């Protein structure tokens, strides 16, 4: 059975790519991906994630660095010799070929005879739950079905690596969740090392074993979804993944594991130095997620005035204006009866725990 292919490892070794104009597309990217892992390349548009995908696929020859699949350095191989399966954002199904011919295309290119090709195509169509669509043309299928076909087509060549380029961007929200589950199921069954390029953080966090966050061509952090969310290494990761309150302040005292910061909003709190030891007296930005703030009754924490409360279903988000005039969001779980906060009410806020406030050196 083809399902038991297992995944080959993928190493992106110090890859740098410059456009002909000299601008850097990606700079010194290092990724060490184990066989069978699902990795998400997460970043805003223009961060270089698609360039990196095309380098791995072989469509772009990187300026420096190596791509290693399994034990082989593949830099000299053209895309058609790399055995890397790709699902394109717009699926890129061949519009003039039937679904079955689309799926069998890669097998035909490998010289598999017609009967075997058709059997394999049918088997893959059953795997993606489209057994009755073999004779149709791509345009007769819905977006979700086209994507399943694109997956089946990529899996048909038994790729050592599967690359998905913004695979769910064109689907509506409900279908997107179905397809995310479907892709994860297929990946688990086949065990193929998979790379998903996405700008959608929820998608990255929910689907991937590890997430690589990119910004401006640089790798900001490469870690598990909980690492990326709870222990961000850079201010960019903290603000790009999930939502956060950015509160400026000055370091009062600091060691390797904790820093006392006087916030401009008017309180001293303990924060986690996210990127190494902070210098005393230096400006920092403290990031606290809305769900990591709590209302406190006593004189601890910082004061603020409630502006607006938004009941968002399972949570209620309050917008609070602090003493220095900046806005802070706090989200409360709706357990039992949440007290309604009047606009203009004076409150005091503090982080739930020191480890949930991340301090980064302020950039000028």
């Amino acid at each position, binding site marked *: 059975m083809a399902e038991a292919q297992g995944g080959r490892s993928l190493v992106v070794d110090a890859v740098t790519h410059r456009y002909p104009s000299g601008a850097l597309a990606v700079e010194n990217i290092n990724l060490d991906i184990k066989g069978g892992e699902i990795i998400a390349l997460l970043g805003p548009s223009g961060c270089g994630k698609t360039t990196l995908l095309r380098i791995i*696929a*072989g*469509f772009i020859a990187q300026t420096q660095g190596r791509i290693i699949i399994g034990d082989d350095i593949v830099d000299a191989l*053209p*895309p*058609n*010799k*790399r*055995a*890397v*399966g*790709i699902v*394109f954002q*717009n699926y*890129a*199904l*061949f*519009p*003039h070929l039937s679904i079955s011919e689309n799926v069998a*295309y*890669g097998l035909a*290119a*490998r010289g598999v005879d017609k009967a075997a090709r058709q059997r394999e195509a049918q088997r893959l169509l059953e795997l993606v739950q489209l057994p009755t669509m073999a004779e149709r*043309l*791509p*345009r007769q299928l819905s977006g979700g079905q086209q994507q399943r076909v694109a997956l089946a*087509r*990529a899996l*048909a*060549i038994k790729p050592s690596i599967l690359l998905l380029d913004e695979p769910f961007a064109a689907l509506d929200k409900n279908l997107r969740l179905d397809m995310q589950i479907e892709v994860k199921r297929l990946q688990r069954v086949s065990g193929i090392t998979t790379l998903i390029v996405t700008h959608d953080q929820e998608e990255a966090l929910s689907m991937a074993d590890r997430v690589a966050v990119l910004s401006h061509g640089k790798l900001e952090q490469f870690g598990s979804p909980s690492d990326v969310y709870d222990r961000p290494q850079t201010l960019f990761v903290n603000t790009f993944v999930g939502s956060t309150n950015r509160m400026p302040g000055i370091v009062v005292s600091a060691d390797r594991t904790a820093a006392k910061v006087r916030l401009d909003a008017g309180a001293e709190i303990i924060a986690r130095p996210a990127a190494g030891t902070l210098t005393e007296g230096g400006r920092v930005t403290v990031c606290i997620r809305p769900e990591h703030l709590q209302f406190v009754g006593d004189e601890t924490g910082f004061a603020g005035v409630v502006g607006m409360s938004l009941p968002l279903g399972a949570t209620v988000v309050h917008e609070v204006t602090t003493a220095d005039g900046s806005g802070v969001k706090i989200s409360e779980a709706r357990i039992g009866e949440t007290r309604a906060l009047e606009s203009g009410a004076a409150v005091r806020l503090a982080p739930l725990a020191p480890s949930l406030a991340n301090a980064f050196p302020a950039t000028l």
Partner: protein
Amino acid sequence: MGAAPASRDVTSYGMGLAAPLALFFLLFFVAPLLQLFWLSLHNDTAGLHWGLGQYLHFLTDPFSLGVLGSTLLLGAEVTAVCLVLGFPIAWLYQRVGPKLQTVIILIVLLPLLTSVVVRTFAWIVILGRQGIINATLQSLGVIDTPLKLLYTQFGVVIALAQVQMPLMTLPLITALGRIDPNLDDASCSLGAGSWRTFFRIVLPLSLPGVIAGCTLTYAAAITAFITQSLVGGGQMLFMPMYLYQQASTLQNWPFAAAISIIFLLAVLAVVSVFTTLGRLSRGYGGA
């Protein structure tokens, strides 16, 4: 790619808007055509005796059939040359930067900016006994006596191919531009080499452009009176010149009319073969 935009059905627009053009066509195209047909049904030049004599004459005369055959063959050759030379240009156009695209478009369109007569005379200068090609080859010592290039089938095909090239290249550029570039990458990532990608993906999907380009080039090549006559010279006779001789020189109007009708039907037959081929290919609706 994809479905046509859901715009208003073309038949739901007021047909009255097309009336001026319809009237123009009726007066200056349909009416003369009917007159031509009526004329061709006369057995004598005076137009007194009805009959199919002119058609019988043409279809039983080996000389006339030879002229028709060589004209249709000429069209096929010119079309083939244009397709073989035009496709790489169109393909290249889709793969270069915007600056080079402008250059390519300019080169493709340049022939249209000069008169056919001027271009044809240029070919006479190039192909003649003392022309550029012969002079160059002789000075290089490749040949001793000048090659006969002008007044040959080869010369006519080359000159016509250059004259009609834009009619092939422009539809091809459009058709290739409508192919999603990801399909190339998809084919490649599935293990197909450049040739398989070209024959299985690019060529089938560009068929609408190939058909359109071939139809235009073919129709233009076989009716190109000026280039055929000037580069072909007196020894090579094609349908337009044959027609002209019968009508103007010999004043045999009914026979000329019959030649016109037969030529028209022959062209229509070839064009409908092209169109049918296009319909049969599934890429027609898909691209």
